[in-house]
């Protein structure tokens, strides 16, 4: 059972401030040495909350806003004077008109993330329109053909990192299949006092700059003590030869970030109220620039009812990972008059966003300690089999010591599951002739895997993947479908928490487009952490031709992650229909997390003419890991 179940009802009266984050003190120390005032002024107790706007006519003003999240005054980019931007509450079936006026000194834009709309309303400068010049007003107008939780953000420069994001809630035209008494938007983001341009430049100069958990002599000593010199040498060998760190989990960390929940720091403690017996719908949105969060509410089960705005068959979990740009709606039913902590720790455990769900505004619950910080394994390098063998070794030598090593075993077991077709593909040796593969077919005339079951094509690395911009290739990628992800894989065994995986998600209503895919595109997510270059198939956006989708076609996209990072991949304009081995109830997503060294497949119906963006939603990966999709 949840370790914090017993402690969460431990309710304490609110003390106004404890600390910004533990990490901030480190920065302050540096600043003090450099002769800067460490703390010019106290951070504002709480940033004003966004308003909720209803109707179908809106005027949005993009402007600069003075903010202070950490004790230092900074300038954010805000919409209508708040960070986050106002919650837009719409109704399915309406046509909305939004006048966006740019009061910045630079171009801006708004992209309506996850909405199905005409491409000229999608808000991507250079693809959908020219962007909004300083002083100009652009009028967006589109019909709402869907309901659920979505969000909007700038698609210009790095404005998203500076506060230009907000939630969208579209109430369904038909009665909502999800019953709830009240709902709250929970928008998670990452704030830095450093400018995004500065962060990007820093990463380009020193890719590991924000990783403050690098291996030390102490770690090595501990490992040698546990395993002996020769086993330690063997275990470190691959990482040393590849010049990579198994602790490289997040590019930008709590070293510079303060994590916000609805614009509030952990200390400001965003608070939502409930009455006992109510069903509360929490609409989680990850609007962060670079941070993947793991969410739980100690003491409460969460029933996930929607993913990326789309209703799914309810799944009850204790914890789930939300990739950048994903949304999840959960229902919680607090049974007592007490307080609960909404806890969103980052994937690398360098910080957390936090809020409180309480029956009494004077109460707050204990904030749990963060979980152990994950360590990457061979699996995350796309050496799936190797990972299994090594884990067997490691387990016999030092039972239960290295969490990382457990994962390989864990997933060895997963791969045994039936219907895991991609797995077969993954085991094809590179260079195997495609034709030898027909044995893997399950009855399609084209040789493609059946709709809903994913790819059975071999993983092939193109010559373009062998340049200076690509530092690794996954030769035996695992299937990412049932993988809870780095750092979550043993939470069931360790803490008894059920963690959501993509494999658990089934759409609430039957699949609409029942056709088989006509073709398959395999795209490799590639990069070089040391040089901080990101690309698709080793080719960055500016050097790439658009991907051409034929209007009306049903096709499969298979993503192969040739990096150690988890990438949230977002296709604009069309659904990414995740192949979870249930063709009848294929979930529709707009952003898909691709696990490190893994593959995942989804179907796309190219039913929207025009030019669409297709990219990794980690903000600083975007300049390279980006493609234009043209539907013609």
């Amino acid at each position, binding site marked *: 059972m949840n370790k914090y179940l017993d402690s969460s009802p431990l309710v304490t009266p609110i003390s106004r401030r404890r600390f910004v984050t533990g990490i901030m003190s480190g*920065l302050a120390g*540096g600043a003090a*040495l*450099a002769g800067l005032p460490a703390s010019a002024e106290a951070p504002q107790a709480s940033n004003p909350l966004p308003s909720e706007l209803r109707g179908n006519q809106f005027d949005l003003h993009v402007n600069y806003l003075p903010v202070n999240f950490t004790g230092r005054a900074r300038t954010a980019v805000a919409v209508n004077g708040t960070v986050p931007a106002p919650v837009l509450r719409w109704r399915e079936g309406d046509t909305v008109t939004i006048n966006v006026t740019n009061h910045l000194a630079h171009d801006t834009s708004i992209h309506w993330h996850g909405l199905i709309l*005409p*491409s*000229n309303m999608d808000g991507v*400068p*250079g*693809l959908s*329109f*020219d962007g909004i010049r300083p002083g100009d007003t652009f009028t967006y107008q589109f019909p709402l053909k869907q309901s659920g939780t979505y969000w909007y953000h700038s*698609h210009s420069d790095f404005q998203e990192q500076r506060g230009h994001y907000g939630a969208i809630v579209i109430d369904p035209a038909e009665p909502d299949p999800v019953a709830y008494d009240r709902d709250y938007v929970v928008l998670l983001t990452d704030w830095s006092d450093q400018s995004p341009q500065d962060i*990007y*430049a820093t990463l*380009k*100069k*020193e890719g590991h700059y924000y990783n*403050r*958990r*690098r291996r030390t*002599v*102490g770690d090595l000593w501990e490992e040698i003590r546990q395993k002996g010199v020769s086993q330690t040498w063997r275990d470190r060998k691959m990482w*040393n*030869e590849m*010049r990579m760190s198994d602790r490289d989990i997040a590019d930008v960390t709590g070293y510079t970030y303060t994590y916000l929940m609805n614009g509030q720091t952990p200390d400001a403690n965003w608070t939502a109220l409930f009455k006992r017996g109510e069903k509360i719908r929490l609409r989680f949105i990850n609007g962060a620039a670079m941070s993947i969060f793991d969410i739980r509410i100690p003491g409460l089960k969460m029933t996930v009812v929607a993913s990326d705005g789309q209703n799914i068959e309810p799944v009850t979990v204790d914890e789930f990972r939300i990739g950048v740009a994903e949304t999840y709606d959960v229902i919680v039913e607090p049974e007592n008059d007490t307080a609960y902590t909404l806890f969103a720790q980052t994937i690398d455990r360098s910080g957390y966003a936090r809020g409180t769900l309480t029956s009494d505004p004077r109460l707050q619950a204990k904030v749990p300690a963060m979980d152990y910080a994950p360590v990457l394994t061979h699996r995350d390098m796309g050496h799936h089999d190797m990972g299994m063998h090594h884990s067997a070794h490691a387990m016999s030598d030092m039972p239960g010591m290295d969490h990382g090593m457990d994962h390989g075993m864990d997933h060895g077991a997963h791969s045994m599951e039936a219907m895991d077709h991609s797995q077969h593909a993954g085991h094809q040796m590179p260079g195997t002739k*495609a034709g030898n593969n027909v044995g893997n077919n399950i009855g*399609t005339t*084209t*040789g*493609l895997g059946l709709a809903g079951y994913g790819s059975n094509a071999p993983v092939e690395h*193109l010559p*373009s993947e*062998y340049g*200076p*911009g*690509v*530092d690794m290739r996954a030769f035996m990628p695992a299937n990412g479908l049932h993988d809870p992800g780095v750092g979550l894989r043993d939470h069931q065994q360790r803490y008894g928490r059920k963690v959501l995986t993509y494999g658990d998600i089934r759409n609430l209503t039957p699949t609409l487009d029942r056709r088989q895919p006509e*073709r*398959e*595109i395999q*795209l490799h997510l590639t990069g*070089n952490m040391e*040089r901080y270059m990101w690309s698709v198939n*080793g080719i*960055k*956006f*500016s050097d790439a*031709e658009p991907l*051409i989708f034929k209007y009306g076609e049903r096709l499969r996209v298979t993503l192969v992650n040739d990096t150690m990072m988890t990438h949230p991949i977002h296709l604009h304009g069309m659904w990414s229909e995740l192949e979870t081995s249930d063709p009848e109830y294929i979930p529709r997503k707009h952003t898909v997390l691709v696990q490190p060294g893994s593959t995942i497949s989804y179907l796309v119906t190219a039913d929207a*003419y*025009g*030019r669409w*963006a297709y990219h990794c939603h980690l903000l600083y990966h*975007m*300049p390279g890991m*980006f493609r*234009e999709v*043209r539907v*013609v």
Partner: protein
Amino acid sequence: MKKFTQTVSVICAAFATSVSYANTQIHEHQHEHHGHSEPEPAHTVEPAPAYQPHHPEHVMNHEVLLTKVTIDQLEARQHEGSALEGSLWFGGDLNKLWLKTEVEREEGETADAELQALYSRAVAPYWDLQLGVRHDFKLQGGDSKTWGAISLHGLAPYFFEVDTALFIGDHGDTALRLEAEYEILFTQKWILSPEVEVNFYGQNDPTTRTGSGLSDIEAGLRLRYEFTPKFAPYFGVNYEKNFGNTADFLRDAGEHIDETTWVIGLHAWF
């Protein structure tokens, strides 16, 4: 001399490889499934997208050009000595302009000062090939000297930062320099950095007091404290020893052929 020739051929091979990478990258690689016997029709006809932007470069495709200045070592040494080792690069992901400098002062006088200006091209995930010139400034009655420089710079397996450089003077003089540096983290902030530099020359040159073969080795051990990763004072020890004919030249001039000094300094970059 044989070593030099080998190095040149290795470097040239690496450069040729890089050029072929560049050529293969131009193509778009849309991946057809094997089940299709017919390739996807080539989209030679420009599709009619809903929108044609006026500024196609407007999307986030900007390659930023950056400048990084690294003060590897700026230090005071025992016996009125001091030293600077630093670099500056300017450019994008694959192509950069590099400046490297090394200055050493002993007993209040500048003993060595050199500046390199190099065009740097990424040739492999962890390696840059660098071509340019090195200038040794005229000091202590010696002559100034200009060399052509070719260098392979990058991160070797096991995280050794390596710079291998071959220099060719205007009279066919040659020199080879190997540098390697490693970092040992005691904590995230306390970092011990051993490094070694070895110089070879292809000829005897009394004017610069360098002798054919292994000429000198410089080894250092510096412990720094990173207040921030960009600002780290350190202290340490530096050891220099001369060999062979170089040592003879120095002995003849009445100078020491080896020296160990304590150092205190600053490591920084921005």
